[in-house]
């Protein structure tokens, strides 16, 4: 494995960039004596992360739980809807415009309504995140289920394949790459939905998520904690994304172009 090796580069380069950026930031903050309530140094953020962990840790879990539950529901419900759309043109024509309408309306605008309508705040947050995350699952899976090689479709027809055989052996595998691409987008959107909904709900107490901690720290001009909470949100998003990439590689690695190692 030399330096030009893609896998090495994929790890080394981002680390180098991070080191340069964080190092420069640290130096600049120290050199210009920037007050901590404007821009805290990375070292201070790290310290805050440790010292405030009793507050931030549980909040991270709350936000993660909302995100994961919403993500799971979005994937299950979105896939189900995609199957319905593909089975019946009627259902698709009737429902698809509303899926689009829901997608293009900003969640910040819908969230207050949902929070009024749904008694349990946790449930309301999940509903908001599902609304944001579900669209790419529906759109991609529907597209995938339709993107069947016409030659293979003819072959299945010639051999008198049942509808079930065609679905399981042809449509589902053909849709897999599209589905996983949708999954990647949806994982990030679920987190965004959860955080935005938390902001709108402003829930404190036991069920306080990271967004609430950011809001509270903002009121108190506790900028280091804002940064620490922000870092946790980013970390959560990146981890989720990495998990979907790993899943996708597991499922498609053997055959799909997107997951093959580049040949040189």
């Amino acid at each position, binding site marked *: 494995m030399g330096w030009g090796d893609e896998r090495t580069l994929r790890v080394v380069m981002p680390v180098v960039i991070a080191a340069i950026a964080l190092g420069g930031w640290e130096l600049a903050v120290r050199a210009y004596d920037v007050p901590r309530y404007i821009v805290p140094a990375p070292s201070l953020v790290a310290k805050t992360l440790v010292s405030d962990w009793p507050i931030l840790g549980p909040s991270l879990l709350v936000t993660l739980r909302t995100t994961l539950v919403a993500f799971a529901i979005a994937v299950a419900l979105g896939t189900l809807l995609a199957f319905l759309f593909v089975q019946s043109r009627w259902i698709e024509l009737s429902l698809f415009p509303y899926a689009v309408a829901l997608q293009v309306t900003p969640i910040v605008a819908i969230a207050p309504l949902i929070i009024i309508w749904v008694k349990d705040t946790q449930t309301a947050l999940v509903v908001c995140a599902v609304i944001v995350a579900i669209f790419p699952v529906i759109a991609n899976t529907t597209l995938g289920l339709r993107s069947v090689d016409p030659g293979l479709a003819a*072959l299945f027809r010639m051999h008198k394949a049942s509808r079930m055989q065609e679905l399981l052996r042809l449509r589902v595998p053909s849709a897999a790459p599209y589905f996983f691409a949708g999954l990647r987008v949806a994982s990030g959107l679920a987190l965004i939905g959860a955080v935005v909904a938390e902001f709108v709900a402003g829930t404190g107490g036991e069920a306080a998520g990271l967004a609430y901690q950011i809001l509270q720290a903002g009121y108190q001009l506790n900028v280091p904690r804002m940064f620490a909470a922000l870092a946790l949100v980013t970390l959560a998003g990146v981890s989720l994304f990495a998990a979907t990439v790993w899943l996708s590689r597991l499922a*498609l690695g*053997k055959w799909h172009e997107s997951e093959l190692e580049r040949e040189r």
Partner: protein
Amino acid sequence: MVDVAALDKVYPSGTVALRGITLAVAAGELLTLLGPSGCGKSTLLRVMAGLAEASAGTVSWWGGDARRLGEPGRHVAFVFQEPTLMPWASVAANVRLPLELAHRPRAESDRAVREALALVGLEGFAASYPRELSGGMQMRVSIARALATKPDLLLMDEPFGALDEITRGKLDADLLELWERRHLTVVFVTHSVYEAVFLSTRVMVLSARPGRIAGERVIDEPFPRNDDFRTSLRFAEHCRALSSLLVEASEARA
């Protein structure tokens, strides 16, 4: 085996693809449909496979209609222009597909898959994925998939059109050997005069727009045929005759 009578095919757009096609496929022959691009020869083959419906006229398979295809003694297999393999499945799984769709017992289909892969010379590639194979090898897998069902009629739609000349020549020769050894009945579509003469017992020439039968020539040459045949005077004669049929067909229209 297959009888096509006074067949017309008109597309919904109004384009007449085929007009007044009448032909009969006899058991054991290797019949080639030869014609320029867009003459409807692929469409004709799809109708003969039961993949497309005729607008007028009749097609019958062993005296029955399309619904009886797939019954014992009425197996039709189709080889497409492209390999048309499932990229997510291994070579063996691709070849096994038609057997699985027909709910054949696993042990029986495993044996059929092994035999079919041996026939096309791909014994060692059962576990490979299609993307790991060259275009010619993928086409062999496609042929193995068709042969695995032990078809009573094999329809091939320009199967080697996308391959380079050398690979094509090799696959033509291999196909001919398979045809002889397995006593296949084949209908083969091509736009290459040379391929038609080399392979066929009989060639039907189609003209374009609308597709009609412009002529027919029996290639009454002994088998096995090899490279000596390709360079023989007789080969050249057949080619010349078919070429002029093709030219006449297109001039009659213009």
